[in-house]
């Protein structure tokens, strides 16, 4: 599965993205499952709200982190996320 650059990316309604105070990190919650996220993965997923496509997410994160070479990493992570059903494309 790969990310279609033309389609918008949205976090899956079957999953929940949530900040955990006790652990100081974001987690993904789903039926009897829990994934603990590192900071960069959480930043990417928070932008998956159905209003942006791949390039728009990349542009926004490159601005936040003042970087210019994030596209590959972001694309790779989103492919994993898509395969795991954490995000969907509309």
């Amino acid at each position: 599965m790969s990310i279609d650059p033309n389609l918008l990316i949205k976090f899956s309604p079957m999953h929940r993205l949530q900040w955990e105070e006790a652990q100081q990190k974001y987690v993904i919650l789903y039926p009897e499952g829990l994934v603990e996220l590192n900071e960069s993965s959480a930043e990417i997923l928070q932008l998956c709200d159905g209003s942006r496509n791949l390039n728009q997410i990349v542009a926004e994160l490159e601005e936040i982190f003042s970087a210019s070479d994030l596209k590959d990493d972001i694309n790779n992570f989103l492919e994993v996320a898509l395969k795991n059903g954490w995000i969907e494309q509309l």
Partner: protein
Amino acid sequence: MAGSNNFNITPPRWLLAELTYKCPLQCPYCSNPLDYTKHSTEISTEDWKRVLSEARKMGAVQLGFSGGEPLTRPDLVELVLHAQQLGYYSNLITSGYGLTEEKIAQLKHAGLDHIQISIQASTQELNDYLAGTKSYETKKQVAHLVKNLGYPMVLCVVIHRENIHQMPQILEMAEELGADYLELANTQYYGWAHANRDLLLPTKEQFDEAESIAQAYKEKVKDKMKIYYVIPDYYEDRPKACMNGWGTTFLTIAPDGIALPCHSARDLPGLDCPSVNKYSIEEIWKESKAFNFFRGDDWMKEPCRSCDEKEKDFGGCHCQAYMLTGDMYNADPVCSKSPEHHVIQEALDSAKASALSENEKPLIFRNSKNSKLYVKPEKDNLNG
């Protein structure tokens, strides 16, 4: 307390709330303790709310309401609401029996995130026999209701010698019901399943055939239905990792308020599993003897102590070691490095002999009448 503190205590992330041992069904593979009738007092709604609040504060976020049958607790909706307000992801683990449309709507409204329904078999006859109660049609209706309300539908089927031949039909049934997840849980031999092991353990041939059917189906439906296949550890040569590490992740609270590092821990000698009536969840998690007992690896004997795989499985399951070898400090005998590994082959042989025998003894169903037969007389308890 027990052991030295050469490890970090991580926060609990999963809370399993066993609300009650009451259950309208009588599955002969139930993992509840055989003598559950001895522990029939139940903590109050207010106690549960405090437990949920305290565990949440420490980091628990996945919450399972189970039992017995959690639907028999009249305060279930109230507890679900409390869990929702605290930010838990709440799972209801139910037989589906007694779940009406009205009740599902109430639970949904209170913020329940997910319902897992278990079905015993793919035919009414076998389902109702194994459940000890007519329940097949109700369960199927409930599965539809759950799906219609927009819940991810998780179906669980426990696999053993009585239903393993139905594997193809079980897979089709799950697909027809529109399951998003199907858990094919090969029986784990604790509690009632252990007592019925000769009748439930499949042969290696049966197991291999069922597994290849399930794996092929998994490929076929991979975009539609996720299949989780729980391996029966009797056919492995390494044990399963005990609870992701003892006292690292999971916290179980039994109906009577006893806190358990794993659901069978009550049977282990000398753990003194603490009660939520006496201690806070923080004290229980960090300081109690039971939760510190198998933390780290100071407790290990050979072959585990010098084994390079000990970080992977933590020596396996202590309850299984205790049940099958009489010593909870032993390596889980499922491990081929265990000097007691032969007990596994003996169990397989004994089950096979039972399957071939003319007059196989009957299954022992999980109900109060049978449970009372397993309650030890008081004098044993005084010595124990």
